[in-house]
């Protein structure tokens, strides 16, 4: 129990800039909204997924999506600070974000899609969106102390 509490304390001992986390989460949301809009890949995505519109309850979806983005930004800033310290540069922030993307998103989401036996393009749209988003978030979180 003692080491568990030590672990919690250890992970919380960083001082994080909440405003930077909120802005990074917003960047994640905005890039996603653009990515899946008709201007970029929205139409292709709808064809690939067979979905036409979001239907009812879209407001709740966006709210949950915002919570998801905040979670990502919150943990990502910790990964950056632990790996590169307080003096992390923009390049280092982007690198840590990119590595986390590779280790946890590419490798993590992959099997879920692999074994579903359906359109793989959904996976590539998603993973490419998150790469762009992670690089932007990494730059924000590293430079904005």
């Amino acid at each position, binding site marked *: 129990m003692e*080491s*568990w509490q*030590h*672990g*919690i304390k*250890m*992970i919380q001992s960083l001082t994080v800039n909440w405003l930077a986390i909120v802005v990074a989460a917003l960047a994640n949301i905005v890039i996603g909204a653009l990515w*899946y809009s008709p201007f970029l890949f929205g139409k292709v995505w709808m064809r690939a*997924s067979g*979905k036409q519109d*979001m239907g009812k309850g879209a407001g709740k*979806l966006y709210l*949950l*999506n915002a*919570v*998801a*983005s905040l*979670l*990502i930004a*919150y*943990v*990502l800033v*910790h*990964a950056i600070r*632990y*790996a*590169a*310290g307080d*003096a*992390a540069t923009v390049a*280092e922030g982007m*690198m*840590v974000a990119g*590595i*986390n993307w*590779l*280790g*946890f*998103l*590419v*490798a*993590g*989401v*992959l*099997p*879920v899609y*692999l*074994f*579903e*036996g*359906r359109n793989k393009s*959904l996976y590539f749209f*998603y993973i490419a969106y*998150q790469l762009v988003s992670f690089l932007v978030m990494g730059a924000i979180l590293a430079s904005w102390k």
Partner: protein
Amino acid sequence: MAINVIINYWAVIVAAVVMYALGALWYSVLFGKAWARAGKMTKEMMEAAQKKGMAWRYVLMLVGSFLTAYILAHFIQYTGSMQFTDGMVGGFWIWLGFYVPVLSGQVLWEGKPFAYYLINVTYYLVGLLLMGGILAAWH
């Protein structure tokens, strides 16, 4: 990178194999049927996938497990975790920050049932707790 860490490659290999083996169990004897039902996968879809060949998928999954274990090992070392339980805390945060939000997209946007998400996300929770613990304790 500003901070250098020493990675125990044996621990990485063991952690990756544990994750992989857990996945093999999780999606067969443990929750295989529930997963197929929740994901609305028909027998025909599964058989079609079998025919196309599954071997490369398992190879890709194994590669993915190594990648995850290798990168998680760095995170665990950066946080200075030395004990199994500390590593579990690190694994938990990575799970909460990346797997929980990322996999939720399938329910939010792709219309997958919540039960399907639950089976996937709990697999990663158990996997990351185990990997984090191994990578911290065996450094």
